[in-house]
């Protein structure tokens, strides 16, 4: 019967790269939020302050 292994631990180098990838994804998502915020402000202009009656 083969040895049962549920997971293989990551090497320190793989853990480091995974952390780097996670940081890169977080920064990309933050940049995307900033971009869409900027698009909204530019598109709406001063109308962004208007509130419906």
């Amino acid at each position, binding site marked *: 019967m*083969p*040895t*049962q*292994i*549920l*997971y*293989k631990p*990551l090497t320190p*180098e*793989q853990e480091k*790269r*995974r952390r*780097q*990838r996670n*940081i*890169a994804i977080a920064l990309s998502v933050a940049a*995307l939020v900033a*971009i*869409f915020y*900027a*698009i909204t402000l*530019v598109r709406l202009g001063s109308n962004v302050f208007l509130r419906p009656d």
Partner: protein
Amino acid sequence: MSLVSESDLGQQSDFGSAASDASPSDYVALLKPRVMSLSIFTAFAGMLMAPHPVHPMIGAIALLAIAVGAGASGALNMWYDSDIDRLMARTANRPIPAGRMARGEALAFGLVLSAFAVLTLGLAANWLAGGLLAFTIFYYVVVYTMWLKRSTPQNIVIGGAAGALPPMVGYAAAAGSLDLSSLLLFTLIFVWTPPHFWSLALVKAGDYGRAGVPMAPNVWGPDATRLQILLYSLLLAPIGALPWILGYAGPVYGAIACLGGLGMILGGWAVFSRREGDLARKTAMRNFGFSILYLFTLFAVLVVERLTTIWLGA
């Protein structure tokens, strides 16, 4: 029952795993940063050709979206071409053939970036620009990479349209429409691509031959390719000057386009006439380098002329 057998653990699936060896720099490499920078630059020039300047923030976001779209094309190209990339010295160290990344990771990365780039450009600028960017990605990945590249020596001629589209995307992002000036920039890059790429292919013919890619020197032979380089250079010189002749660019552009066009013709003639030995290789590489300088200078002058006009008019 084991969830993962021992024999599976040493292998990486096509879609990668938590144990991926890819670092963020590998994902950057997938974007082909040098190709991406040329796309940004030519798209910026196209944007400045628009009759009215675009809002700087929208312009910057549109350029970013175009850059990401170009990068996504590169990632999808590396996903599809990983089998032949490992056979060529020039491409063997790319993330997939080097074993640092699974093919599926590049595919997912390219598809996600493509979708975000097109949607962002559509929402930030307009849907003509977004649609053109989507078409550019489709053309580069499906028409060029999947179809033409491995089937015909005309691959980079027809496929060159993908590299020529960014100025039109940039113009559309700024103007919301297309006109003759954007078509001129498209034509300039389209006609520039064959002499540029074939000069490199003359030197790298062995690489392409090993990978089974039917580049012109491998199919038509080096001498026929040299003739084609000369003919395209003869065609390119007047096309390069057209933006000035038709009034879309100033006299500085006109002078540089004429001088540069002459340089391309002389370079094409040198490649055509020097056919043997190390001198032939050096001449082809020099023509390859000069063609980059030629295109970069033309677009740089166009950008400077347009920015000067905008600032003086403001």
